């Protein structure tokens, strides 16, 4: 019965997604949406891809990685080379961006995922910086002045990439493989004792997360006319991390909602670049004080619609946190 309900909810959300897609597509083609908002919508979608891909690594597998902008950069540059230097079609660029990032995820994942907690964070941070500095020094991709990229990331491309990303991550999570990743997050020693190859799943989550970050990178590159190494600095990684933490570690819908809200906030704050980070940080501090488990906690949006969902338990959780 619950399976039936889940299935119904699934098709309902797919239908809803398509309605949103066609409405926005209509507004764009009929020219009723001004370019500022079109750009914001594209940016939101790209950020959602990033948030969801990092959610798999941090929220599901529990590996605290703060070098996500590195994968974004690898994807962006790889795809830009495909379209701008080699003149190949955009779809191939998206795929290549994803694969290039996944490969870098494999290379960085195998040695660093032995580390735990803060050590892993520092190692991944190092990876992000290495990517940026390599790009800064390679003349083929323009060095510090960056690379010109033509605008190809239209709404259908971005939308379907986002939809496929969310679906893939959701499907992965709701399977034995996703549960294996969750068990790594919960207790690595116990997971090991239950026959889970923890290294394999950590690396797998890392690669899948990196792949979709690379896809986001391809879209990002083909949305902004120019990419520069400075776009992919440490702060970009932190931005993505914030979506995941603010949305609630372990909640897919939470990271989507957080990416949506924060992108809107930061887009409107663009006129005040000096105060942007201050307001941003304030939001985070307030959030962490009053709702340390994030917007959604570990719950999904769909839980709100379920009758048998233990909603009272959520309230208990909230109380516990405020009392403590």
């Amino acid at each position: 019965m619950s399976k039936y309900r889940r299935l119904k909810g699934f098709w309902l959300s797919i239908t809803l997604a398509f309605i949103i897609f066609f409405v926005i597509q209509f507004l764009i083609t009929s020219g009723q949406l001004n370019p500022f908002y079109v750009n914001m919508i594209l940016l939101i979608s790209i950020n959602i891809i990033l948030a969801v891909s990092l959610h798999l690594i941090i929220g599901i597998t529990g590996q605290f990685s703060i070098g996500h902008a590195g994968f974004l950069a690898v994807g962006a540059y790889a795809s830009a080379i495909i379209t701008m230097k080699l003149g190949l079609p955009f779809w191939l660029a998206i795929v290549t961006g994803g694969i290039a990032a996944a490969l870098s995820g494999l290379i960085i994942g195998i040695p660093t995922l032995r580390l735990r907690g803060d050590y892993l964070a520092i190692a991944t941070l190092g990876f992000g910086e290495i990517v940026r500095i390599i790009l800064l020094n390679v003349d083929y991709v323009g060095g510090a002045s960056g690379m010109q990229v033509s605008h190809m990331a239209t709404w259908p491309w971005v939308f379907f990439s986002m939809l496929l990303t969310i679906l893939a991550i959701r499907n992965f999570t709701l399977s034995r493989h996703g549960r294996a990743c969750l068990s790594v997050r919960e207790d690595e020693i116990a997971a090991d004792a239950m026959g889970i190859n923890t290294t394999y799943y950590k690396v797998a989550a890392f690669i899948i997360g990196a792949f979709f970050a690379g896809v986001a990178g391809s879209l990002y590159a083909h949305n902004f006319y120019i990419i520069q190494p400075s776009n992919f600095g440490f702060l970009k990684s932190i931005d993505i991390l914030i979506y995941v933490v603010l949305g609630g570690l372990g909640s897919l819908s939470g990271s989507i909602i957080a990416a949506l809200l924060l992108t809107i906030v930061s887009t409107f704050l663009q006129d005040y670049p000096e105060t942007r980070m201050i307001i941003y940080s304030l939001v985070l501090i307030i959030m962490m004080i009053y709702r340390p488990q994030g917007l959604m906690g570990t719950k999904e949006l769909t839980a709100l619609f379920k009758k048998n969902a233990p909603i009272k338990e959520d309230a208990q959780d909230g109380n516990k946190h405020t009392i403590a």
Partner: protein
Amino acid sequence: METNIPLLKVDHASIQFGGLKAVSDIQMEIQKGELVGLIGPNGAGKTTLFNLLTGVYTPTEGSILLNGKRLNGLAPYKITQKGISRTFQNIRLFNDLSVLDNVKIAYHTLAKHSMLTSIFRLPFHFSGEKEMEEKAIEFLKIFHLDVYKDEKARNLPYGQQRRLEIARALAASPQLLLLDEPAAGMNPQETKDLMKLIRFIREQFDLTVILIEHDMQLVMGVCERIFVLDHGQLIAQGIPEEIRNNPKVIEAYLGEEVS
């Protein structure tokens, strides 16, 4: 001939941490179907021995054989797949996951659908997941935990958490089950139920069990054979009656008699 190969053979196994020999020169043979107790004062090396058996540590000397095959140097998850499963002294459940998911994870290695099958939701994924779910629920029923199946593991009462941990270890379908102080923190009634449960699962699943325990009543009552560790060494082994009267054991527990 085959019956002569013990299920588990610990052959002169030692482990050294720096200058400390936590477990030294242990020799044990356990036959299929036995229920064996492992006792000893605090710090005797009981849990360390479990960690050696499950691959958390690799013995610095000697070897460990399961059905005559060496386990040395295998990763813990591989040893679990070969048939040794365990519980932990301090409960290690997957706290934020549901009771059902806790058991499903132990079934992980028995399911075969691949990662890509799951991502693309091919038919094999659904049949595999369905089978896992059915098996897990069946299992929870044996332990009377099926009523809690959607509850988070952390919300279970303490005694039930212990039971869930045993259920999870069993779901990994071991030949040899290692229980590390299963009765710790339980009241007498819960301990009594636990003893019944341990006997029951051994019959039901055709298991061999090694049990670390401080509760002498439980150990003496349920185990057929007992091994005693002290300072990393095996000082005695035998049936409960022998152990009870063994002067070395009494000395280890109560100290040497002052003359």
